[in-house]
């Protein structure tokens, strides 16, 4: 099988692997148990009438149709480059942050946008002294569930941080015909190794019409904010290591706990083993802390570099310092 990404399989990308597995399991269970309705989000009537605010949290957990599933899975698979770029723990933290921002902002834009459209309608009707205003639901009322916003933000990150490894041209005219003349640029297509991601993302963008368009645009906006370091908290926040480990390997943690309980009841054990275990844990913790410190230092050093264009000088006043 040809390798479609530079990284083979899920090597050293545990977060991507777990995300793909969990999304698949959730999607299958949602379908089998027929509980798709728990993952939809619409302002009216779900939020307005029934006050089901928990949907802001759940709607990004599962997609509810097959084509969405396919596209999101392939995109997650491609974005494992980002996990290599950030490191697993940072990547998981980023996904969480983006999901929170996307959930909240999407909800705000949907509800406020709908209100605004209604208000404009009311305003027009009253200024022209027309009667017959009734509240109506707009295209902002409901969106398609799934991690579309997160993927949009990651798409921006991908474009910003993952370098292009090669380019290639597709000539649309016969190259041997007019050999002497220069090739006009309009007759060739310049593509990079990112082109498949662009295609897949565009498909996802239009897959559910306006219902996927709204969360995608919001996701793109948040991604842009993040890459220009304008998203509060996003640069510095890291998921606690224990939570990260639980996410990466829930069974190992479970086994450890069971072993711990068994040790308590089973009486004696070899001392060396315990000490080794604990040592390893502490060491790895320390090592991670050191790495984090180094990363922070680096970012500070980078911030102090003198060459700054005017635009970034303006933006820097809004930027949050990671500390």
């Amino acid at each position, binding site marked *: 099988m040809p390798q479609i990404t530079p990284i083979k399989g899920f090597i050293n990308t545990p977060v991507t692997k777990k995300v793909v597995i969990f999304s698949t399991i959730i999607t299958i269970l949602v*379908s*089998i*148990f*027929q509980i798709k*309705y*728990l993952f*939809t989000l619409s302002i009216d*009537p*779900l939020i307005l009438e*029934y006050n*089901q605010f928990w*949907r802001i949290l759940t709607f990004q957990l599962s997609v509810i149709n097959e084509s969405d599933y396919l596209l999101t899975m392939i995109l997650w698979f491609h974005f494992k480059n980002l996990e290599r770029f950030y490191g697993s723990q940072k990547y998981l933290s980023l996904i969480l942050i983006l999901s929170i921002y996307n959930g909240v902002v999407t909800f705000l834009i949907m509800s406020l946008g709908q209100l605004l459209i209604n208000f404009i309608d009311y305003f027009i009707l009253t200024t022209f002294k027309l009667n017959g205003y009734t509240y109506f639901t707009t295209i902002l009322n409901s969106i398609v569930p799934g991690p579309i916003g997160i993927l949009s933000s990651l798409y921006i990150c991908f474009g910003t941080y993952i370098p292009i490894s090669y380019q290639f041209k597709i000539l649309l005219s016969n190259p041997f015909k007019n050999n002497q003349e220069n090739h006009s640029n309009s007759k060739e297509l310049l593509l990079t190794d990112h082109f498949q991601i662009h295609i897949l993302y565009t498909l996802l963008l239009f897959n559910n019409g306006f219902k996927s368009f709204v969360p995608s645009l919001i996701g793109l906006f948040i991604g842009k904010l993040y890459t220009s370091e304008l998203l509060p908290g996003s640069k510095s926040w890291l998921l606690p290591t224990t939570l990260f480990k639980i996410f990466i390997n829930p069974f190992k943690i479970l086994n450890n706990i069971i072993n711990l309980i068994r040790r308590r009841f089973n009486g004696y054990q070899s001392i060396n083993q315990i000490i080794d275990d604990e040592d390893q844990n502490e060491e790895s913790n320390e090592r991670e802390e050191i790495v984090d410190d180094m990363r922070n230092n680096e970012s500070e050093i980078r911030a102090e570099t003198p060459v700054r264009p005017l635009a970034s000088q303006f933006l820097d006043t809004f930027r949050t310092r990671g500390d």
Partner: protein
Amino acid sequence: MPSVDRQSLVFFIIMFIFLTLPNGQDQPHSYQERQTLTMFQKSITENQKALANREYEQGYGNLTGFLLSYDDMKSGKKEEDWPLHNYKETPWIEDEKYSLLPNVISDKVKSFWGNDKVDLNNENELGYLFNISGRLEGKFKKNNERSKQIEKFPLKLPKYLRDYFESINSGDGIIDDGNNDGSNDRKVDEIINKVGNLTFDEGKIVVSIKSMDYNYKNPEILKHIKTPEDKVDDAVIVELKMNLMDESETSKNEISTYGVYFQDSGSLISITNSGKFAGHLGAPSLTMNERNFGVSKKIISQYLNGTSLEEQISMDDMNNFIVQSFEQCEFINYFQLEKTEFSIKELKEIDEELVNPSGKPISKNKPKIKINEMLLYSPDCGIVIEDSKVEGEKSEIVTIRFRHVFMGFLVIIVLQLYLFLDQIEKSKTPGQLSNISSLTLYILQYQDALIALTFLIVSTIFEKIYLLLVTIAIVTYIMCGIFEMGFLTQVIKTQMNERGTSWWEILRSSTARNNENSESSPNEDGTPATTDNPATPATPTQPTPIIDNDDANVWNGIFAPGFAITIISTFLILNSSMWRKSYRKTFEMVGLTLLNSYWIPQFFRNTLKNRKTPFDLKFVLGTTILRLIPIYYVNLFPTPFNHERNQNFVIFITVYVFLQLSLLYLQNFNPRFWINDKWLPKAYNYHPIINLNDLEHYGSDLLSSVNIESDDMDETVIKTDCAICMNDINLPIFKNKTKKVPKDYMVTPCFHIFHSECLEDWMKYKLQCPICRNGLPPM
């Protein structure tokens, strides 16, 4: 290969059954049949047309079974004289003078049926249920007093159908050729074993109702609705099946009826239909008032026009009609539902949310279908049942409960799958595999195969939770058909080669062994086989060489009979749900007890092998508990399965299973704790004392290296090679018998010598002699 043949044979048999099932419809064969069928079709369509134009005052019209009124019947008038009344001068009213119903019945119906109407447009008023699909249960009692007040109303087949019926029956020789009309009639009337002709006074009634949607939402009927007036939004057609049975469920009377449910008054009328009683067409006139008549006439004629078309009425339909009219009592049923505690708006919301869930918050306690009063009246059998109450859950709620139960079941299956995978991972060496009882695995696998097949079959019936049921079937199939099957194949393959103690030998050894022993020992005294292994003097030689022991053969050998047995027993189990209560209960208890005996074979296997249980504690406990949970659930809790609760059986099965577990636990200390050592043949001794006399068995190499110089000594040491590590083995040879037991070498039954360590390591992987490939008895 025979096993493959058997497998394909099973498939061929099944294919054959499917192919030879009669498909399509019976075609008319003779002129008479064709003529009767045309007449039958014509009469049905004509009656349907007549219904559409009928008015309430005109009475029933020319309908089979409705020609005479109750009064006419009592005064002995004849059907041939129809019409007897002229409704133009005196309009038809609900009275025994004109009506089929005696006044005793109609007065009673009028007293409770459809009197409390609600305004469906007023959304805040408390209303009756809209969708009444569901299964209701209750007790009934025959009202014999009232049935004494009324006379039986003999209903007859129309002439042309009767002629046709006689002609086919005389051809079959069922009725004597010499019979004339009169005797035939008598014969027909004399059938007492009619369905619905209740011989018991009280019992259980189960009513299952399938409510159709409004006529303008039904695609088949939609094309018959031309004007807005044709739409009916306060009444629906219902299909109602009722089953009247006595307490022991020995006699079951299942009667299927059609009818109309009036949503504004919560009243339901349903009626049977057969060759002698055109109930569906007559029903509108039995609805007590003109308004109901109008509504029910509209939807019934629309429904009949939409569903029973002239060309679709086949010979089968006609024959069924005729047979039904002989075998079944006709029933006219009136049911009155209880008003719910919900407003009309809430009821509509609940119905909508149950069918298409959107997350709308609806009240936790959903309305039940409660039938407050009912009257079942059979004119031809003269049976009246009244004042009974039945109630049950709506079918959507039952579906939701089923879904929850099966979700839990899926979790159990997945856990069991995990336990199995874990166990398979842990037992890979032949040593462990040879200790596992294949019968235990057979039983577990049989249980799982039953589950897989049952769910697969049920999924085709239960389309609302089809996906969930199929998932369970598939996961179970993966567990039993792939993993357990592979595991069992491994176990059987390992044990194929084995020669050791068998049940037969244990049984035999208690009596015959001693004799054999006393005969054989003097002859073969001194050989290593007999000094320590007296029970099996001949068998330590070779197990019969097994030529094809590859996976596929073993697999086929399990699969083909297993598959056949599973299919047969699945159908037996599905069929058993229709048996009478006592049979059903006994079958269930015996079956479950047998199915839950899966640790017993393992217990014997442990005894046989003198080993403790090869299964993990986690697997043993987990499997036992997981397989008990469904039994507990079904027997102790209110389930949607309509299963009787049975605490005693739960206690019994718990004790039974945990007894097995405790036996397995005791074997951790001594696998043969329950058996006297003397009964058993001893295991092969790998550490025999080698005497000089035995050396001839070991081949010439060894014999040549004997040092004769040390003749005078009691003990000589010979060096030989271990074929595994290629190092020397020191073999002490004794001239006389000693008690000293050497432990550093092992001798196989085929007289090859190895280091103890080397051979033990090897035996973890294969129970075969590394040199000559003969089978080795396990240690």
